[in-house]
C-alpha cells in the first residue's frame, strides 16, 4: 500500500509541474497511432500520460474508442489515479465494445475485495456504471458483499449501486433479493448509508408505483427522522423528499412529524429548506385548523421563504416559482410580505417576471397603493416582456381590487399617453378586461383609446380594440367608420381579429341597423364565402341565419348580457395545484406542470395528492376550493357563460340549487314546449332543409320556467328504501293501491378504473312524487375519500340536485355507502342527445369525475297526469298526425287490466278502455314535469304477447323515450 501511495505522490508532483492543459492541444493526424504506442509503453509514467491524453480527447468529443484494448490493459495497476482514469474511459466506451469490456471484469471483482475501502467502493461504483449485461452478471456477488461491508463508505456506495443495477436490469435486482437488503440499510447505524438507501429505494419505487416498496410506517419514519438530524445536507434532502410521500395516520402523527421537520427551515442549503416546506405544506392539510400549532406552523413558514430570496439568482428563481404555488394554496402565509417581492433594478429578468406574478397574487386593498406605485415604475423599464407584464399586472390589480380600479385606469391612461407602442397595445388589452369587470363605468376613456387605433399592430390588441368598439358601438359616433377601416385588410388579419371583427360588426348592426346594413353584408360574405377558416365560416353562417330568421332573437343572443369576468384568471387549476404542492422544490414546481408532462416513461407518472384533512369536518379553507362541502355558500360572483357546457362542468361551484324555483306552470297545456328547449337554435345550426320543429315564438332559446317544483318532500326521503318492497307492491297489483313507480336496477355508471378508485352505481326512482337518484358509492382505492359533492350538467328537463350530496362519513377503502339524492326539475335546460341523457360530475377529495347516465323518462311523469276525457279527445285530434309514432312491445304477457294497473304505478293513467274485436284499446295520458302531455293508445289482444302502442305528443322527440318507459314498466 505504501508503495502505490508513494508512487502516486511522485506522479502528482510530475503532473503539477507540467500542467494537464497540454493534453487538450494535440490534434495531429497520426495521433491515435502514437497514443497506442504510448499506452503500451513499459514506462508507467508514459502510460499514465497517454491515458490522460485519451481522456482529454474523449472530453472534447474525439472518438478514441479504437484504443479500448490498450486502455483496458492499463487497468491492472495499483496506481489509484491511473485506475480512476481507466475506469472513466471504461464507463464511456464499454457499451460500444461489450466484448472487450469483459476483459475488465476480473480486475473489478478483485478490486471489490481490496483491503482499502476506497478501492472497494471505487470498484463497485464504477461497475454499476458499466451498462453491459455480461458485466452486470458478475456484479451481483461483489455487490452483495459490499452491501454488508464493514465500512460505511462502501455500504453507502453499494446502496446507490443497487439503483444503478435496477436501472439496467430490474428483474435481476428483485431476483437477487437486493431490495430487501436495501430496506435493511434504512436501519443502518450510519446516517449517510441511510440517506443513500432512501434515495435508491425512492427511485426504484417510482418505477413500481404500487409496490409499497418503501413501506413507510411510523417505525421507519422515526428512523428517517433520526437520520435527518445527522446526515449531510444532500442526505437530508433525500430523506425529506421521501418523507413527503408518507401519509400520516392521523393529525397527531402529522403534527409530531412537522415538529421534527421544522428545524430544517434554518438550514443554509435552500434545497433542504424547500423540501422541508414541502413536507410541512403537505402534512398541514391534516391538521385541524383550530389547533394552535396550525397557526404557529403558518407563521414559521414565512421567514424561511423570504430568506430564499436572498440566495443566488438561480435559486431565487426556483424559490419564486414555488412561492407562486404556495401563495395560491395558502395566501395567508405571505400576505404581509409584499415588499420583499418588489423588483430590484439589477435582478435577472427571470427573477423580475416571477416577482411580478407574486406581487399580483398578494395584492389586496391594504397594499394596493404601494403595489401600483411599483408597477408604474416598472412600466418604464427597458425589457419589453417585463414592461408588458407590468402593464398587464396593473389591469389585473384593477380587476382584483375593486377600490383600486379607478386609480389603475388612470395609470393605464397615463401609460397610453407615453405612446410607446407595446405599452399602448398591452394597456388596451387589459382595459378590455376592466370593461368586462365593471361595465358602464369607465367608458369615458374610449375616446382616448380610439386615438391609438392606428398604432396597434398586434392581433391581441387589435382584437381587444375591435371588441371595445363593437361592444360600445352606440356610444362611438364613428364606430362604423372605425370598423370599416379594419375590414379593408380583412384577409390579412389573424383569425382572432377576424372573428372579433365579425362579431363587432354584427353587434353594430343590431344597434344601428339603418346605417350599417351594407357593412354587415360585406363582413358576412367575407367570412362565409372568402374564408377557408372553418371557425370563421361557421360563426358567419350562424349570424347570417340568426339575422335573417329572427332579428329579435339575434339581438337577445348576440347582445346578451355578458357574465362578469373572474378576479383571478390565471390561477392554476386546483387539482393540478395540489399535485404541484406535492412536488415543491422539483422541476415540476419550476415548470408548473405535472411530471408526466415532461418525464418520459413510467417514472414520475403517478399523480400525487394532498392528504385529506382530519379532525374537524371542515375542509380546506382556502378560497379556491372553499365551497367543497359548504352547505349554504353564497352563489359565486362569476356566472359561467351560457352554453359553455364544458365550463359548466369544470366550474364545479356546487352550490345547492335553490328550492324556490319559478312558479309552477299554469294549468293550461304547454304542449310544444319541448321545442323551446333548444330546437330553435338547433334548427338554426342544422341543415337548412330541416323543418323547424315548432314555433319559436320569439322567446329566447332558453326555457327556464318549465319545471314544476316538487311537492313538499317527505322528511324520510333520504332514507334508503329497499327495492324489494316495491316488488311486493307490484305483485299485489291491487286496484286503487298506490303502486311504486318502476325503478330500473342499479347499473355501474362510473367504473373505479376511470375514477381513481371511486365506483358509482345507481338508478333513478320516483317515490311519493319526488325524483330520486339512488347511488352506491364504493371506495376501491387505498385511501380514504371525503368531501363528496355532485353537480349535473344542464339537461333536457332541468334535472338538478335538490340538496347537497349527503355523505357524512369519510369513505374508507373497500367501504360502500348508499346515498339517495332528491332531485328537482328547476335546473338549467339544454336539449341532450339522447333526450334522457344526464351528465354528472362528482367531486371528492381526490379529483373531479364525470360520467353520463340515462334516466327512465317515466320518472318525470307527474301524479296529476290524468287528462279529462273530453280534453283527451280534443287534444288527440288537435295534434297533427305527423306527430304520431307507433311502436311494438313484444313478449308481454299481461292482460290489459294488469297492464293498466302497472302503468298507473308509474303515473301513466288510463282514461278510457274500449274493446273492439277482442282487442282492448287503452287510452292513456301522462304529463311530464315540464308540462308536456303525452297521449297514448295501447292495443292489447288476448293471446298475442305483442302490444301495439301509438303515441301522440306536440313534442314528438319524447315519444321514443316514452315508449322505452312503457316497455320497461310493463316487463318488470
Amino acid at each position, binding site marked *: 500500500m*505504501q508503495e502505490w501511495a508513494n508512487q502516486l*505522490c*511522485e506522479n*502528482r508532483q510530475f503532473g503539477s509541474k507540467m500542467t*494537464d*492543459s497540454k493534453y*487538450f492541444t494535440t490534434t495531429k493526424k497520426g495521433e491515435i497511432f502514437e497514443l497506442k504506442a504510448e499506452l503500451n509503453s513499459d514506462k508507467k509514467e508514459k502510460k499514465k500520460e497517454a491515458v490522460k491524453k485519451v481522456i*482529454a480527447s*474523449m*472530453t*472534447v468529443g474525439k472518438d478514441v*474508442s479504437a484504443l479500448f484494448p490498450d486502455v483496458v490493459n492499463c487497468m491492472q495497476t495499483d496506481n489509484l489515479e491511473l485506475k480512476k*482514469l481507466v475506469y*472513466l474511459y471504461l464507463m464511456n466506451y464499454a457499451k*460500444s465494445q461489450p466484448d472487450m469490456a469483459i476483459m475488465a471484469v476480473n480486475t473489478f471483482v478483485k478490486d471489490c475485495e481490496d483491503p482499502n475501502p*476506497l478501492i472497494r467502493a471505487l470498484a463497485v461504483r464504477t461497475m454499476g456504471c458499466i*451498462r453491459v449485461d455480461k458485466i452486470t452478471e458478475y456484479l451481483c456477488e461483489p455487490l452483495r458483499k459490499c452491501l454488508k461491508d464493514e465500512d*460505511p463508505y462502501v455500504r*453507502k456506495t453499494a446502496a446507490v449501486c443497487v*439503483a444503478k443495477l435496477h*436501472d439496467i436490469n430490474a428483474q435481476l435486482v428483485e431476483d437477487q433479493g437486493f431490495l430487501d437488503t436495501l430496506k435493511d440499510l434504512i436501519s443502518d447505524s*450510519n446516517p*449517510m448509508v441511510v440517506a443513500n438507501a432512501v*434515495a435508491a429505494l425512492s*427511485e426504484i419505487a417510482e418505477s413500481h408505483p404500487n409496490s409499497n416498496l418503501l413501506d413507510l410506517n411510523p417505525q421507519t419514519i422515526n428512523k428517517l427522522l433520526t437520520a435527518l*438530524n445527522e*446526515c449531510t*445536507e*444532500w442526505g437530508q*434532502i433525500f430523506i425529506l423528499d421521501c418523507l413527503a410521500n408518507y401519509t400520516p395516520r392521523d393529525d397527531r402523527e402529522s403534527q409530531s412529524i412537522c415538529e421534527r421537520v*421544522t428545524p430544517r427551515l434554518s*438550514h*443554509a442549503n*435552500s*434545497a433542504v*429548506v*424547500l*423540501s422541508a416546506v414541502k413536507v410541512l405544506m403537505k402534512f398541514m392539510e391534516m391538521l385541524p385548523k383550530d389547533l394552535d400549532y396550525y397557526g404557529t406552523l403558518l407563521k414559521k413558514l414565512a*421567514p424561511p421563504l423570504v*430568506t430564499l430570496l*436572498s440566495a443566488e439568482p*438561480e*435559486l431565487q428563481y426556483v*424559490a419564486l416559482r414555488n412561492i407562486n404555488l404556495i401563495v395560491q394554496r395558502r395566501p395567508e402565509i405571505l400576505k404581509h410580505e409584499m*415588499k*420583499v417581492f418588489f423588483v430590484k*433594478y*439589477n435582478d*435577472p*429578468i*427571470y427573477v423580475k417576471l416571477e416577482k411580478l406574478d407574486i406581487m399580483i397574487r398578494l395584492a389586496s386593498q391594504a397594499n394596493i397603493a404601494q403595489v401600483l406605485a411599483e408597477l408604474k415604475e416598472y412600466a*418604464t423599464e427597458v425589457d419589453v416582456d417585463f414592461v408588458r407584464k407590468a402593464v398587464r399586472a396593473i389591469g389585473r390589480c384593477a380587476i382584483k381590487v375593486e377600490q383600486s380600479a379607478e386609480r389603475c385606469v388612470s395609470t393605464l391612461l397615463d401609460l397610453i399617453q407615453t405612446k*410607446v407602442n407595446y405599452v399602448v397595445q398591452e394597456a388596451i388589452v387589459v382595459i378590455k378586461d376592466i370593461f368586462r369587470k365593471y361595465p358602464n363605468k369607465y367608458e369615458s376613456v374610449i375616446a382616448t383609446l380610439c386615438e391609438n387605433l392606428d398604432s396597434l399592430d398586434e392581433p391581441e390588441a387589435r382584437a381587444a380594440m375591435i371588441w371595445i368598439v363593437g361592444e360600445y358601438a352606440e356610444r362611438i359616433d364613428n364606430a362604423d367608420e372605425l370598423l370599416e377601416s379594419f375590414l379593408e385588410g380583412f384577409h390579412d388579419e389573424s383569425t382572432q381579429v377576424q372573428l372579433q371583427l365579425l362579431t363587432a360588426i354584427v353587434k353594430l348592426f343590431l344597434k344601428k341597423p339603418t346605417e350599417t346594413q351594407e357593412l354587415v353584408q360585406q363582413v358576412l360574405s367575407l367570412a362565409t364565402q372568402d374564408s377557408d377558416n372553418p371557425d370563421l365560416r361557421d360563426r358567419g353562417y350562424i349570424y347570417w341565419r340568426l339575422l335573417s330568421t329572427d332579428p329579435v332573437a339575434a339581438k337577445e343572443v348576440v347582445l346578451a348580457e355578458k357574465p362578469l369576468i373572474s378576479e383571478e384568471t390565471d390561477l392554476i387549476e386546483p387539482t393540478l395545484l395540489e399535485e404541484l404542492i406535492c412536488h415543491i*422544490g*422539483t422541476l*415540476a414546481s*419550476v*415548470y408548473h406542470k405535472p411530471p408526466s408532462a415532461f*418525464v*418520459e416513461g413510467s417514472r414520475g407518472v403517478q399523480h400525487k395528492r394532498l392528504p385529506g384533512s382530519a379532525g374537524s369536518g371542515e375542509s380546506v379553507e382556502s378560497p379556491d376550493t372553499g365551497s367543497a362541502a359548504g352547505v349554504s355558500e353564497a352563489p359565486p360572483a362569476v356566472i359561467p357563460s351560457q352554453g359553455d357546457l364544458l365550463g359548466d362542468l369544470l366550474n364545479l361551484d356546487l352550490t345547492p340549487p335553490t328550492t324556490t324555483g319559478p312558479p309552477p306552470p299554469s294549468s293550461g297545456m304547454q304542449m310544444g314546449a319541448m321545442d323551446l328547449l333548444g330546437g330553435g337554435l338547433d334548427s338554426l345550426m342544422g341543415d337548412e332543409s330541416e323543418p323547424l320543429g315548432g314555433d319559436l315564438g320569439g322567446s329566447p332559446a332558453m326555457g327556464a320556467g318549465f319545471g314544476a317544483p316538487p311537492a313538499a318532500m317527505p322528511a324520510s326521503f333520504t332514507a334508503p328504501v329497499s327495492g324489494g318492497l316495491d316488488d311486493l307492491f307490484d305483485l299485489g297489483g291491487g286496484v286503487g293501491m298506490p303502486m311504486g313507480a318502476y325503478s330500473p336496477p342499479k347499473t355501474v355508471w362510473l367504473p373505479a378504473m376511470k375514477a381513481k378508485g371511486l365506483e358509482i352505481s345507481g338508478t333513478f326512482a320516483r317515490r311519493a312524487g319526488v325524483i330520486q337518484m339512488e347511488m352506491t358509492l364504493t371506495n376501491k382505492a387505498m385511501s380514504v375519500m371525503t368531501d363528496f359533492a355532485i353537480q349535473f350538467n344542464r339537461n333536457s328537463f332541468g334535472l338538478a340536485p335538490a340538496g347537497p350530496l349527503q355523505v357524512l362519513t369519510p369513505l374508507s377503502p373497500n367501504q360502500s355507502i348508499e346515498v339517495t339524492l332528491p332531485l328537482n326539475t328547476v335546473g338549467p335546460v339544454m336539449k341532450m342527445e339522447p333526450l334522457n341523457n344526464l351528465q354528472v360530475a362528482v367531486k371528492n377529495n381526490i379529483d373531479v369525475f364525470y360520467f353520463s347516465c340515462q334516466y327512465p323518462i317515466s320518472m318525470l311523469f307527474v301524479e296529476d297526469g290524468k287528462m279529462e276525457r273530453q280534453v283527451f279527445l280534443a287534444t288527440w285530434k288537435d295534434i297533427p298526425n305527423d306527430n304520431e309514432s307507433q311502436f311494438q312491445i313484444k313478449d308481454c304477457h299481461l292482460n290489459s287490466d294488469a297492464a293498466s294497473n302497472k302503468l298507473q304505478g308509474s303515473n301513466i293513467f288510463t282514461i278510457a278502455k274500449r274493446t273492439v274485436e277482442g282487442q282492448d284499446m287503452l287510452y292513456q295520458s301522462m304529463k311530464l314535469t315540464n308540462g308536456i302531455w303525452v297521449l297514448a293508445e295501447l292495443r292489447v289482444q288476448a293471446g298475442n304477447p305483442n302490444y301495439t302502442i301509438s303515441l301522440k305528443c306536440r313534442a314528438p322527440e319524447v315519444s321514443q323515450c316514452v315508449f322505452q318507459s312503457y316497455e320497461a314498466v310493463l316487463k318488470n
Partner: protein
Amino acid sequence: MIGGLFIYNHKGEVLISRVYRDDIGKTWNPSYTSPPSPSHWNHMRNAVDAFRVNVIHARQQVRSPVTNIARTSFFHVKRSNIWLAAVTKQNVNAAMVFEFLYKMCDVMTAYFGKISEENIKNNFVLIYELLDEILDFGYPQNSETGALKTFITQQGIKGQTKEEQSQITSQVTGQIGWRREGIKYRRNELFLDVLESVNLLMSPQGQVLSAHVSGRVVMKSYLSGMPECKFGMNDKIVIDKQGKGGASDDAGKSGKQSIAIDDCTFHQCVRLSKFDSERSISFIPPDGEYELMRYRTTKDIILPFRVIPLVREVGRTKLEVKVVIKSNFKPSLLAQKIEVRIPTPLNTSGVQVICMKGKAKYKASENAIVWKIKRMAGMKESQISAEIELLPTNDKKKWARPPISMNFEVPFAPSGLKVRYLKVFESKLNYSDHDVIKWVRYIGRSGIYETRC
C-alpha cells in the same frame, strides 16, 4: 437525479463532461450535423450540443436558468465566462441541483482557485476525480472540502495506514463530515467577522420602500481537537427570555440593544434541533474558514447614508442634477470606499460636475457620473451638482431614470447585531475557553442601496 454534468468555456466548447445516466443522451438536436450513433458517447454529445446551441449561442438573453430542450432539462450557472450545466430527464429536485452546482464551484475554487478555462484545463483529471466522488449516479455525496482534501489531493497522499483509511471513510460518511480528528494548533485562535450588507430602496421623496440587512457570520477557527462551541448574540428572543427569568436590571438595559432577527440559516455543523427548541447556537466547527450563519433583519435598521436627489429637466437638451448625501452614524466612526453612481441618459453629450468632497467623473461607457469619496465621518453632509447636456433624439421612449445607487463600507453592523459570547469547550485536551484568542470584527457594506430619482 442529475444525468450529466458539463463545463463549457465561453465559446461553448466542452471542457469537462461527465455522464451519470444513460437517458440524457437521447436528445436529438437537428443542428447537430452527423447522424445519431448508437454509442453512448455520441448520444451524450447531442445533449452537449443542444445546450450550446440553445443556451450559450442563443441570441436572446437567457430567460431562465432552467431550460427544457426536447424533454431534457438543463440547469446552468455561470462563473465569469465558464458555464456549468447539469442535465436531467427526470423530475429532479431543482433547488438541490442548483445548490450542488454552487457547491461544485466552491469545491473547485477551494482546490485550484479561480474558475477559469485555464485552471479547468490544468486540473481536468482532478475535476473528473472530484466529480466521481461527489456525485454518484447523479446523487450528490459528501462535498465538504475539508473531508475531500483528506483523500483527493493534488499533491498525492502520503502513506496511508489501515487506520488512516478508515478514518477517511468514517469522516466522509460520518456525522461530523466537516472536521477530521486529531487537529492540533499551538495557539488556539478564533476570528469572527460579522459581515452585513444593507439594502435599501428609497422613493425620491425619501420614503423607505424596502430595507433589509442580510448578514453573515464568518468564522476562521484554528482550534485543536474536537471543540464544542457556543455562539451568542443579542437576539431579541433570547434576551427577552433571559430577562423574564432573571436579573431585572440587566434586562432593561440589554432589551434596548437586542435585535429582532427575521430569519436565519446555519452551516450544517450547527445543531438545528437545539436552535429550534432553545434558540442556542452550538456546534463543532470545521477547521479553517467557513460561514457559520446567515441572517436577515428588517426592523430598526441603521441606514448609514441618506441620498437626496434632485433632477430637473431644462428643456429637451439639458438636465440638472443635484445629489446630497448625509451620513447617519456616530461622528467618531469613519465610513470608507464611498461611491455614488448617478445614471445619465444614453444621449448624454457632455457633463459638468461640481462636488464639495471627493472626486467625481462622468463615465460615458457606463452611462453614469461616478462620485467617489475615500472617507467620511458620521453626521456629515456632502453635495454634488451636475449639468448634463443631451443630444436631441427622435427616440420616443422616455429615459427610464434608473435609481441612484451607492456603495460604502462602515465599521459597524447596520442591523445592530452584537456578538455576546463565543465559548469553546474541549474536554479532552488541556486548553480552556480562556486560552483561546478571539477576534471580532464588524463590517457593514452596501448591498443594493438605491434611491429612485
